[in-house]
C-alpha cells in the first residue's frame, strides 16, 4: 500500500492509502475537498490540480506536454504543479505529500 497525504485549502491534512489507479481517483474515493476529477481522469478539466511537496517532485516528475498545456491557464500554478489524474499510484510514491490547489 502507498500512503499519500493531502493538505486541503483549509489546512486539513488527510493521509489515505491506495495501491493502484490514479492519485485523483484515490482522492475522489476519499472525498478530499478540492479534488473533483470531473472528467474522470483524461486530462480535460484540471479539477484535480495539486502542488507536489518539493522533496517528492523528483519521484512524480514533471507534467507531460498536454498536462502542461492544461496547467498553463490554471490559477495558482507553481513549479511543482501536477494534475493528480496523471499520477499513477505505485510504491515509489509512498509518503507523498500533496497540497490541493485553490
Amino acid at each position: 500500500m502507498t500512503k499519500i497525504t493531502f493538505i486541503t485549502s483549509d489546512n486539513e491534512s488527510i493521509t489515505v492509502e491506495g495501491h493502484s489507479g490514479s492519485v485523483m481517483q484515490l482522492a475522489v474515493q476519499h472525498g478530499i475537498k478540492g479534488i473533483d476529477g470531473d472528467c474522470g481522469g483524461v486530462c480535460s478539466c484540471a479539477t484535480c490540480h495539486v502542488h507536489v511537496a518539493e522533496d517528492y517532485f523528483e519521484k512524480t516528475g514533471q507534467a507531460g506536454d498536454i498536462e502542461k498545456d492544461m496547467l498553463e491557464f490554471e490559477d495558482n500554478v507553481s513549479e511543482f504543479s501536477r494534475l493528480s489524474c496523471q499520477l499513477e499510484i505505485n510504491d515509489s510514491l509512498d509518503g507523498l505529500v500533496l497540497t490541493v490547489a485553490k
Partner: protein
Amino acid sequence: MKKSAHADPFEKARLDKGFGEMNDQDDPVVMLLRHKDVRKCAHNWKTFQSGAAPGRIVIPSEVPIRDTRQIPFELDPPLHGEYRALMEAWFKRPIEKNYQEKLADQINASIDQALEMGSLELIKEFSLPLQSRALTLLLNTPYSESDTWISWGTHVFRSEDDPLDSSKANILYDYIDEQIEKASQNPGEDLYSVLLASEAQGRKLSKEEVKGVMILTFAGGRDTVINAITNTIAYFADHPQSLARLREEPEIIGKAVEEFIRYFSPLTHMGRVATEDTQVCEHAVKSDSRISLCWASANRDASVFENPNEIILDRKINPHVGFGFSHHKCLGATHAREILKILIATLAEKVQSIEIEDYQENIEHWGEFQRKVGYDSIRVKFQGR
C-alpha cells in the same frame, strides 16, 4: 463514411490560417479554430468579454429577441465568479447517489419503452423526452413539468423555418416568469426558490437575475443534450462491437463519455466580444467586434489529438473543450456526463443491436463551413438482448 460519422469541416482552414470568417445579422464573427488559440482566448476574459449586450455572444446573435442577461454566462470576472459560486454546489448534485438512482430509473424506463416500440423516431420519441425528464431532477421540480417542456418541441428558440423565432423564445420566457412568480409566493426546494433566496453583491438576487439563470439552464442544456444522446445512439447502431466492448469493460464508460463529447461537440462554438483592438492568428480584430471559440474545430486539432476523426473509446489523454474551457466551462456538465454514463451502461445491459432505418442530417451553416451537429430526424429500431 458511416451514417453516424461526423466529418470535420474545419481542417483545412485550421491548418492554413487558423481562423474562419462568417457574417451573422451584420455582426461578423472571426471563428478561432485551433485548440491552443481557443483555450487562450477563452481564458483571456479581459480582451474577449462575455459581458457584452445580452445575446451578443451567442451565434446566431440573440440581441433582437432577448434583453435578459443570462447568468453567470454573460458576466465577466470578478462578478461572474460571485454568481457562479452560488450555483456550483447545486449543479454538482448529479454526483450524489440518490440523484443517480432517480436518473437511472428514468433512463431504464425510456429504454424499456423504446424496446417495446421497436422502431421509433429517436429525437422526438426518445432523446427529447429523456432530456426533459432528466431536467426535472436538475431543477428539482415535479416530474410532470417535463410534459410541458416536451410539448415545446426540439428547439427552445428555433423553429423549422426561422433560426430566431421570437414567439418560440417567448413561450420559454413567459413560462419561466410564471414559475418564478409561483416560487416567490410559495417557496419550495426547487432551483427557482433556491436562487430567489440567494444573495450576490450584498443583496438578494432579483427576479430578472433568476430568470437569467433559468433561461441559461433551459436553453444551454436542451439541443446539446438531445444531440449528445441521439448521436451516441446512432454511433452504437453503426458500431455494435463498441456497445459490446462497453458491456465487457464498464470501467471505460467514463472515458467513452469524454470521447463522445469531444467527437460530437454538441455546441459548435461560442462568441466573445473584443474589448480592444487586438489580433488572433495575425488577423486584426477590432474593438467591439466578435470572435468565436470553435470548440468543434479545436476538438479535432491533430496537434493535440492523435487520429482526431476516430472515436477511441478509451482515449487516455483527452483535453477536449466540448464543455467549453476556463471560467465559463459548462455548469451543466456534471448532469450531462451522468446522463450519458447511465445511458451507455443501460444500453449495454439491455440492447443487442440498433438499426438506423432512415435519417435526415442537421447541417449547420457557418459562413464557409457546413457542419453536421446531429439529425433533424432519425428513425431507429432497437433489438433487445
